[in-house]
């Protein structure tokens, strides 16, 4: 809420306050004047104190939709409490440098970045956007948790989020590496997490080929987008990756970057921009791009849908539905497939519940992330569909954890491209 809205909202109080006695009015004015002195930290800090205070003093109006709270069922994980701890760490009420307070630091990382809180927030922010500013101060004090340091080490050593350079595995996975000639129409930007799902990558390559698109994958030169570093708030590492990617994209000559990972799309656009880096080409998620190809008759469904895929449910990746604000592309594509029955889960589109595998929680507390995945799978199972269709490698990972071992044969997690491959 801006200053103008705030003043307007409290205008009705003015005549009542005017009636008050001199001492009361003077106390009130003093309290207004001393707000920062009374409640803000001294010295330099990056924490968003204004909004941490708003969040910690809110009655927690988003709590019912916080995936981590619902997974843990502990008040400790409630959004308002996280903001409260962030505030106490920032003002030194809880000393972050003491080993005994490590749990409080860890709490700042127990979020999936799903941003369902933002949907209900009277102030229109997400809790993670506040926690990230607390992480900034912790990093400046050299208090980055070890599980975050390990991710940064991996990025620096392998250029990906794995212990090895996952892009180098393309041959053994049967993925076609298409080198650029510097004059591409599209650069197919494969997420490092998607390299764990080679069938999806192969399907995307075939779809782009079928549509007659001139594109490259440039896998030999690929590096991570740097998203994990931005989540951890290691801007130095993040910017290093942004620079590498900017060069790589420029080399291809492509006017549009199409990625199979919504996390990469968000990083290449929003996160790079906030770090002051503009890669100067349009970046879209592949679902949006495929929808565009179908709408322009560049792709046609020529085959019948196999029996086993005739009934599906959609798991909207929260990064697409809430961060990229696109809940229509996936449905527009699916609605063009004859013989396909879509059973929507109760929580879908912008109200989708997260798979548990976004953000930093799966490093900070894998058990909670798995429970969140389990909760989401339960909701998808309630639809009666055995095929869970999604469009994000993190969701494929998370939902995979959420399916019980003895049900792995019954339920199938499918990327939309894998389904489309069977039809074109």
């Amino acid at each position, binding site marked *: 809420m801006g200053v103008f809205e705030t003043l307007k909202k409290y205008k009705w*109080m003015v005549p009542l306050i005017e009636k008050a006695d001199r001492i*009361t009015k003077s106390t009130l004015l003093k309290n*207004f004047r001393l707000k920062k002195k009374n409640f803000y930290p001294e010295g330099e800090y990056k924490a968003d104190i204004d909004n941490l205070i708003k969040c910690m003093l809110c009655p927690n109006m988003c709590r*019912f939709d916080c995936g981590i709270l619902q997974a843990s069922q*502990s008040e400790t994980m409630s959004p308002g409490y996280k903001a409260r701890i962030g505030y106490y760490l920032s003002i030194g009420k809880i000393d972050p440098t003491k080993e005994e307070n490590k749990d409080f630091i860890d709490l700042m990382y127990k979020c999936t970045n799903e941003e369902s809180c933002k949907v209900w927030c009277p102030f229109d922010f997400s809790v993670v956007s506040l926690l990230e500013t607390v992480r900034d101060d912790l990093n400046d004090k050299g208090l980055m948790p070890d599980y975050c340091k390990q991710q940064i080490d991996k990025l620096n050593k392998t250029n990906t989020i794995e212990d090895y350079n996952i892009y180098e595995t393309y041959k053994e996975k049967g993925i076609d590496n298409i080198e650029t000639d510097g004059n591409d129409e599209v650069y197919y930007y494969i997420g490092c997490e998607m390299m764990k799902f080679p069938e999806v990558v192969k399907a995307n390559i075939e779809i782009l080929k079928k549509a007659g698109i001139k594109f490259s994958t440039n896998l030999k030169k690929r590096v991570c987008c740097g998203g994990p570093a931005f989540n951890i708030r290691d801007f130095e590492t993040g910017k290093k990756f942004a620079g590498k990617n900017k060069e790589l994209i420029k080399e291809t000559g492509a006017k549009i970057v199409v990625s199979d990972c919504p996390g990469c799309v968000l990083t290449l656009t929003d996160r790079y921009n906030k770090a002051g880096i503009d890669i100067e080409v349009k970046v879209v998620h592949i679902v949006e791009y495929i929808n565009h190809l179908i709408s322009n008759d560049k792709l046609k469904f020529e085959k019948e849908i196999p029996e086993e895929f005739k009934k599906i449910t959609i798991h909207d990746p929260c990064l697409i539905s809430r961060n990229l604000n696109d809940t229509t592309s996936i449905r527009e594509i699916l609605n063009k497939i004859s013989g396909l029955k879509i059973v929507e889960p109760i929580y879908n589109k912008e109200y989708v519940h997260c798979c548990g595998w976004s953000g930093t929680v799966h490093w900070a507390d894998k058990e909670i992330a798995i429970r969140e995945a389990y909760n989401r799978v339960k909701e998808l199972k309630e639809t009666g569909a055995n095929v869970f269709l999604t469009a994000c490698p993190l969701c494929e990972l998370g939902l995979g954890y959420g399916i019980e071992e003895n049900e792995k044969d019954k339920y199938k997690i499918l990327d939309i491209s894998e389904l489309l491959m069977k039809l074109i």
Partner: protein
Amino acid sequence: MDFKNFELIYKENRHEIKDKQAIESKLKEIIGENNVSTKDIDILAYTKDTTLLAFNWVIEGKIAGLPDFITWPETVDQISEILKLANKEKIPVIPFAEGSGVVGGAIPIHGGIIVDMKKFNKILDINDKNLTVTAQTGINGMNLERYLNAKGYTAGHIPQSLYISSLGGWIAHRAAGQFSTKYGKIEDIVLGMEIILPQGEIINFKTIPRASTGPQLDKLFIGAEGTLGIVTKATLKIWPYPEKRALISYAFPTIENSFEAISQILRVQIYPGVIRIYDQFETERHFPDVEQAKDKVMVIFVCEGNSKLVDLEESITREKCENNLGVECGEHPVEHWFETRFRVTETSMLPTYKIVFDTLEVASLWENAPVIYHSVLESMDKVKGNLIITAHVSHFYPNGVGIYFSFGGVPPKEKSDLEFYQECWDTTIKAVLDAGGSIAHHHGIGINRSHWMEDEWGKSMKVMRDIKNLLDPNNILNPGKIYVNTWKRGEN
């Protein structure tokens, strides 16, 4: 972390536990290693409820109460065993779910074991034939209601705390929702319950629309605030989701005109889902842009349900409003209410200016309602430091109303925020009692009102205390609430 860094508000009569480690081990034996915590990070999370003064304490680094153990049981047998252990060791047990109470009901003022009910969050059955839903009581209200909505139903219980409260909390505090004039209050909605008594015995009240089977013992537990038992499961009435809604608003010259109009509507058995009267201050606060309502009293109505019935209700509602000098203000004020009813921002702003504020609700017969309204406003005007006293009326019966008063001010130099807060509460309640009203409509007693219970109940309070002693002879279930004077009247 050292809790000494946080000023503890309720520190008197804390229950000292001699061997905490031994108790922790026993709790872990009952509910498993991962369902018990004594970690600082968990303890701090359960030190408050949603009492508005607690928000001032949060920013000032104070904590209301300090529990010793946090537990997350998963079965009724586990809760039963925890209670048996607590009786043996004489340790307080405080039921907790979403912590949305605003009268201190879930604050562990003597320390002890928090029994967090959040894992009791399953919807067990929706029965279309009987129009019932059965759910565990730790379920969040919004998660219950939106699940019902998705299946084509509503429970009709929509408190402003819907997003942050639990089914168990509604039952414990005898709650009422914004649509209660049509659907009833929680005691009208609950048809059956499973309850664990203070000494661990599990009892069930079967689901039945009505019975003539002696005194209705089940009602004793609705509003007992977790002092007589822990409700673990409940069956509620549900309704098909309304097919039509009519949004109506009128501005009246005085609050008395609005009372008269609404009384006449209810007298002929028209029950709009929502009726809300805003006094002149609150009308200015919520509807500054509605010209017709300038210096008047706004009333909004929502009629909902079957289309034909809604049309009839709308027509009669309009007729009664116009007969009582109401001026039509259109749908916009009601739409504004729908848009903003869950957008609470005051708690986030006012404590940063050290403003102490709250809302408290009281009940009255029609004949006393205008007197209560005016006398509370007059009395609160005299409280030194108080800046604001306003009212709205949001719960209605053919026989009377529930009135909400909101106050806000800055404590004078000689008073702490708690002392000022208590003075505002006590002043309001005294004015209400003097004018023939009841001290609470639907938030319950908790800590804030317990010292007025003798005035409210008279000699019946002894019977209540006898019942408490009978069921909970060791006084382990949520002590310091309802039956004792945690706040000392007149001493603050």
